[in-house]
């Protein structure tokens, strides 16, 4: 009898995503660090990884060797690193938000923009750009992200208010509210583009997303929003796993679905709002990365969230490095992620469909 029990436990042992997941986290962290160093060395001025590490160490009080060109510290610390870290944090933030939205809205097609945050941010940014066009003297580096962030938050508030009669904030009412608000804001953006007349390019360029000219202020804003929110969201991994089974099952297991959904969506949306405010609208990262990680590591959020974060970081850093270094003209990052992400999503979708029918 004992033998039989032990065989049973071996045969049906838990899938325990933590074992392979932890290895994946370590590998992905290593890849990310290498990719960041590699990316920082690439550009018009080539800088070796050794020199990059020496420059960073010098910045923390170490000695900068005389062999290193005096312009290199500026290139690394003031130009490339802020841009690289911005890309990394935006990629990670969007990928984590994608996991959350897909789990909580019980919809594998959901992404960080499902609740209309991108439209809200775009509307806010468009108003700011229009104000600049008509000659209101405001610093563009501050006013655009501030308006975008405010637009995203107001949209979130509107979506939650619209969905509020559903006490549990059901996924259907949230998604529908998001679609309605997005449609209204899209019309508003079209109107602003029309009003901007010949200077409409500034709005279109912002909408396509970019990391050009990002500095340490952007890094600080993102670090303050993306990093803590990712840790907070990881605390709700088990609840989110259970909530994919529906409200009845979740509540029978003791989860206050309405409260958890509201809190977790607000945290994920704040992080997304920060990402959009800093970089513009970058699509597909939040949709594809969670799918890709789920395909390899399974659906458990305990590992899905950290691995998606790291994969999102690597993906967007890679895309930004390609557009910054390898292409003859720097094309907007949102366009590049859509061009790469679209076909990749088709491949993943096709593969999962085939697996399901086998």
């Amino acid at each position, binding site marked *: 009898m004992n033998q039989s*029990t032990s065989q*049973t*436990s071996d*045969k*049906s*042992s*838990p*899938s325990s995503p*933590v074992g392979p997941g932890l290895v994946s986290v370590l590998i992905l962290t290593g890849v990310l660090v290498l990719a960041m160093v590699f990316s920082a060395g690439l550009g018009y001025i080539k800088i070796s990884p050794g020199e990059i590490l020496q420059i960073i160490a010098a910045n923390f009080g170490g000695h900068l060797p005389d062999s290193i060109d005096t312009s290199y510290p500026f290139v690394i610390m003031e130009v490339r690193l802020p841009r690289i870290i911005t890309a990394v944090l935006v990629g990670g933030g969007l990928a984590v938000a994608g996991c959350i939205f897909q*789990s909580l809205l*019980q*919809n*594998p097609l959901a992404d960080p923009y499902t609740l209309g945050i991108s439209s809200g941010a775009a509307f806010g940014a468009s108003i700011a750009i229009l104000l600049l066009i008509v000659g209101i003297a405001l610093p563009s580096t501050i006013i655009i992200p501030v308006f975008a962030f405010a637009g995203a938050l107001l949209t979130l508030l509107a979506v939650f208010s619209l969905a509020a009669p559903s006490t549990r904030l059901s996924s259907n009412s949230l998604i529908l509210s998001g679609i309605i608000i997005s449609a209204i804001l899209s019309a508003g953006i079209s109107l602003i583009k029309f009003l901007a007349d010949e200077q409409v390019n500034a709005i279109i360029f912002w909408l396509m997303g970019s990391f050009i000219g990002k500095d340490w202020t952007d890094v600080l804003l993102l670090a303050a929003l993306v990093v803590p929110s990712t840790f907070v969201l990881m*605390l709700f991994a*088990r609840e989110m*796993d*259970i909530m*994919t*089974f*529906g*409200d*009845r*099952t979740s*509540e*029978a*297991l*003791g*989860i*206050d679905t309405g409260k958890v959904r509201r809190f977790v969506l607000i945290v994920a949306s704040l992080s997304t709002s920060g990402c959009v405010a800093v970089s513009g609208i970058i699509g597909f990262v939040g949709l594809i990365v969670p799918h890709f990680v*789920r395909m390899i590591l*399974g*659906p*458990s959020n305990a590992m899905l969230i950290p691995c998606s974060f790291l994969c999102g970081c690597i993906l967007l850093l890679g895309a930004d490095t390609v557009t910054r270094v390898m292409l003859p003209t720097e094309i907007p990052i949102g366009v590049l992620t859509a061009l790469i992400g679209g076909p990749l999503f088709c491949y993943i979708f096709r593969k999962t469909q085939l697996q*399901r029918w086998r």
Partner: protein
Amino acid sequence: MMKDFRGWELENIDFSYGTFPCLAEISLTLGSGCFYGLIGPNGSGKSTLIDLLSGYLKPETGTIRLNGTILQSIKRTELATLLTVVPQRFAFNFDFNVYDTIMMGRYPHIPRLSSPSQEDHRRVSESLTHLDIEHLAQRSIRKLSGGETQRVMIARALVQDTEFILLDEVTANLDINHAIAIMRTMRALVRSGKTVIAALHDLNMALGFCDHVMVLNGGRLHLQGGASEVINGELVTDIYQVSSELIKSNDGNVHLSFKYQ
């Protein structure tokens, strides 16, 4: 309200979905250690009553008490250690495997930021064996038949290890072998002191396994009492407009035989 009473006390419960009235004037006392059957035609309010008993829905008027406390005032986390529910419908959007799905039933017993203990794993393994789904442990929940899914969700409820178990038409997707096995399991749980309330369509299952039956019709409590006292040809004609007769077999068991022509 009785002191130290364990179970549900429902007083004048009314419930509507918007303007559509679903349940009216339901008053019931459901003590512990009993196997209750909830029967009635489609749309009679069985699932809604299960949702009210589980605290998922809140009555419009009237009060529901569980173990003497107003149900809505009991914290969700505490309620999950007292009662479990196997709903009629489930949402499966992601490929969780069967083992992990059943392990979710231990959620109320695992402290935050802790991993499942050996005891949690032992209970999950036991329930896999008990419900004859060991071979499915690593399979995706989305790649199971309706009956297999139902057994997984019952296993999930069993590992939750609660005093009260609510089942909403759980034998509907099961073959007769597994349906009887589930009902026997529930019977054994009742013998060990647990309380089971099962919404059922199969009147013979209710007759064979339940101690007490409540009949809902048109959102009202039509009748209640011992299963063999309540379920008979007259009730079936009255509620379902189908002719039937109660047949007693040689071993003393009774069952309904329906007239199909």
